[in-house]
Every structure is written in C-alpha cells, then in structure tokens.
C-alpha cells in the first residue's frame, strides 16, 4: 500500500518536471520556428528554388569537367599560390608577435598594472568584434591594393583570438615557480622568462600554428576584395564563366591547403613534443 502511494507521488512529480521542461522548450522552439518561417518568406526562399537549381547545378558540373590544366601554365596561378602562402605565414608571424606582447600585458598575474591589463583586454575584444572584411577594406585604402595589405589584415585579425588565448594560458600557470622566483628577488622580466614562458610557450605555438590554418583560408577571401593571392584568380575565373579553369585552380588550392595543414601538424608535433620532453 505504502509503496503504491510513493510510486504515485513519484510519478506525479516526474510528470510535473517533464511538463515544465517541455513548456520551456516549446516557447523557445516555437519562437525560433516563427523566426525561421518569417526569414524564409522574407528572403524569398522556397522549395521551388531548390528544384530549379538542380539542372543549373548539373550544367555547371558538366562545364567544369574536365578541368582546364592549361589555365595553370604561365606560372600566374602558382605565383598567386605562393603569394597566398606568404601572406598567411607572415600575417600569422606578425600577429603572433603582437599577440605575445599583448597577451603578457593582458594577463592578470604578470601585467605591469591593472589599467594596462584593461586596455590590452579591451583592444583585443574590439578586434575580435570587428569582421576581417572591415579591416581589409580600410587597409587596402591605407597601404594600397596587393598582398601587403592582405598580410597586415591577417596579422591584425589574428591578434584578438591569439592574444586572448595566450593571456588566459598565462593566467592559468602554476603560481608556485613565480612565487619562489619572486621571493628569491628576481625581476619581473626574469620571472616571466624563467617561470611563466616555459609553461605557456608550447600552447602558444600550437595556437599560432592553428591560426595559420585559419589565416590560409582567410587569405583566399582577401583575394576577392583586392588583397592579393589565389582567391583573386579563382574569383576571376568564376566571374568570367571559365568554370574549367576554376576547377583546375580549385584543385591547386586544395593541394596547397592539405600540404600546409600537414606541415603545420608536423611542426606542432615536433615542437610540442620537444617542449614536453624538456
């Protein structure tokens, strides 16, 4: 008898919890569904567009094959590939240097003062909010069209994320080596050099290599707005309806990305492996 009462009570309680839980989801879900429907109608998207797109898709595929390898002769595309790689590499390098300094200034445990920390944090937060498109458009006016502007845009675009991750890593270091160095009378620079950096440099390098992967893809976009690199060649081929050329360029881009990712992976493993072993 007692068991049945308990069972009933438990069932009622579970039912209440279940209902409350689903009512909340119903509200969020209903709101999102309404927003979705309104957006679809407002953008003029319908199933008809999908169906109409299919023959266009097939025609495009037919025009892309076979890829026109002739488009690669003359070295223009290969030079653009080199340009893209250089932009991504230098952009990441420069961005990493700036992030390194900003990250140290923004970390609560090694920063020279609270005000400096807040300033560095704000600078990075603002950078993260600004889309790369805005940065590159302004830079192209300032330093002119070409890969140099693109490289600078990538460098600036890397600072927000890399700097933030670096600052967080510094704040999470084991404080004991810092304290013992400080009690032995070490200067701030010595503390950073001998107790903070050994703990955080491996993760910094790993993040920088990861940022290189991101920047390489971002560098493709820069070509479209005039920042140099192979994105320009691809955009041009597509705009001029030279789809077979575009496919050949796409293949080269894919090879570039895969090789760059493998290299970054190899370096990451090599550098981090060494650091961990030390």
């Amino acid at each position, binding site marked *: 008898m007692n068991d049945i009462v308990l069972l009933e009570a438990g069932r009622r309680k579970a039912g209440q919890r279940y209902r409350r839980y689903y009512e909340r989801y119903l509200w969020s879900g209903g709101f999102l569904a309404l927003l979705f429907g309104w957006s679809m109608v407002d953008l003029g998207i319908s199933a008809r*567009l999908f169906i109409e797109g299919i023959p266009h*898709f097939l025609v495009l595929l037919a025009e892309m094959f076979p890829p026109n390898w002739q488009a690669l002769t003359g070295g223009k595309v290969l030079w653009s590939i080199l340009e893209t790689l250089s932009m991504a590499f230098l952009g990441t390098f420069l961005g990493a240097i700036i992030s390194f300094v900003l990250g140290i200034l923004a970390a609560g445990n090694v920063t020279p003062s609270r005000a400096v920390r807040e300033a560095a944090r704000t600078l990075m937060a603002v950078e993260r909010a*600004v889309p790369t498109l805005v940065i590159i458009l302004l830079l192209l006016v300032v330093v002119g069209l070409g890969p140099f502007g693109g490289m600078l845009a990538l460098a600036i675009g890397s600072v927000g994320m890399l700097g933030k991750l670096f600052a967080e890593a510094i704040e999470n270091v084991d404080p004991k080596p810092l304290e013992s160095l400080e009690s032995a009378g070490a200067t701030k620079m010595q503390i950073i050099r001998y107790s903070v950096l050994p703990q955080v440099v491996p993760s910094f390098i790993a993040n920088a290599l990861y940022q290189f992967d991101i920047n390489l893809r971002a560098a*493709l976009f820069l070509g479209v707005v005039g920042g140099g690199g192979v994105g320009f060649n691809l955009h041009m081929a597509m705009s001029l309806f030279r*789809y077979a050329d575009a496919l050949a360029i796409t293949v080269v881009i894919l090879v570039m990305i895969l090789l760059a990712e493998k290299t970054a992976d190899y370096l990451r493993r090599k550098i981090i492996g060494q650091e961990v072993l030390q």
Partner: protein
Amino acid sequence: MSVAALGAMIVHLKKFRKYVLPALAATLLLWGASTISRVDLGAFLAGIPRGITLFGHMLPPQWEDFPGLIGPALETVQIAFVGTVLGAALAFLIGLLAAGNLSPHRAVRELARGALTAERALPDLIIILFFVAIVGLGAFPGVMAVAVCSIGMLGKLFADAFEEVDPKPLEAMAAVGATKAQIIRYAVLPQVFPSLIANTLYRFDVNIRMSIFLGVVGAGGIGFHLVMSMRLLQYREAMASILVILVLVVLCEKLSDAFRRRILGQEVLR
C-alpha cells in the same frame, strides 16, 4: 687532436644543428615570404598619415543612411540564421549516419565521416563562389553556402557527441523493443541536446561574419553596402555601414549567449 677537443667540437655541431640551422631557415623563409608579399615599410609609414586622413573623411558617419541600412542588416542576419538552421538540420542527419553506435552500417559511417572531412577541407570561398555560379546573385546562394559550409564542422561535432552518449539507456530501450527513431528520440537526444545547441549557437556567430562577407560576392546584405560605399569613395556612408556591422556582430553574440545560457542553464539545473 685530444678527446676533449673532439667532444667540444661535437657539442658545437649539435648546437649548430639545434639553433643555427633553424634560425637560418627561419630567416630565409621570412625574407622569401616578405619579398613575395611585397612587404613595403615605406608604404606602411606613408600609410599612417593616410590612415588618419581616411579616418577624418569617415567622420561623422552619414547618419541619414541608418534607416536604409536596417533592411540590409536584417537580411544579413536572416541569411546567417536560415543557413545555420538548415546546416544544423543536415548536420544532424549526417551526424547520425556518422556515429558508430547509431549508424546503420560501418560502410555508411565511413562514408559519412569521409564526406564531413572533405567538406571541412574545402575552403568556404570555393563553396560560396560555386553556389553563386549555380543560382546567381541574391540571398538564396548565400543561404545555401552558409548551410553547406556549416555541415562539415557541425556534423563532426554532432557525430562525436552521439558516440559519447551513455550506452545504457540505448540498450535498455533496444531490449524492450523500441525502434531506432524512438531510441534516438528518448535515449540519445536528451543526452546530447545541450552540446548540439551550444555548437549550433557557436556556428551562428561564425556564420554572421560569413554572411557579412557574402555581400562582396553579390549575396546582398550589409556587406554589399560597405563594399559599394568604399568603392565609390563614400567614406562617411562606409562608416555608417561599419557601425551597423559592429552593432550587428555584438548584438548577435549577446543574443546567442543569452540563448545558450537559458537553454544550457536549464539542462545543468535539471
């Protein structure tokens, strides 16, 4: 030659290989990359006063433009939103096929995983240009590009989440004869729901930025206005667009944060 001298030489050689060679290689690499990217300190220095002048030309922003920019800004958000929802829905289905514990067959799983990896390797720009070429200009290619670009990342994260669920509820339901759909609905979904939502919201933040860029290749929205006013040297109009973009990005981030906290907070409290 004494043994000590030989030892010293070997140490030197080791130091040479460990420090000098990498330094040389790095210098060569930096020099080469600088030459190819046409790094120009002169242009940079000349750019500083030019940047200040540009900033002067941009202020004050063209305030009269703001009412006209609300429509394009909304379009940018809508493209990102619809694209994210469609992409997440597709990623959910592919994620089910790619999860080892739910996939109908090993071969299907490998195929789905392969497709997701291939999509992640494909740069977004190629997908965007491809869709613009298929459907022409407008919001539709933008939505499709955003959706397809989201699938690779979301599908992998979803599949990983599915694979990491506690298998006991699944086994219990299978033992009482539940169908696959019922198992997914009542045993898998409650476990993975928070991570699905969190990842989708994160992707929405990424997609807002992509949607802004889509304006450049002709998919409409606020990015188009920004690029147009920069090309026409209408810097005060450009500043208005930039301000709207900044508000848009920050607002969307706050919104998705609020959503994340609301939905995930519940899950954690449950």
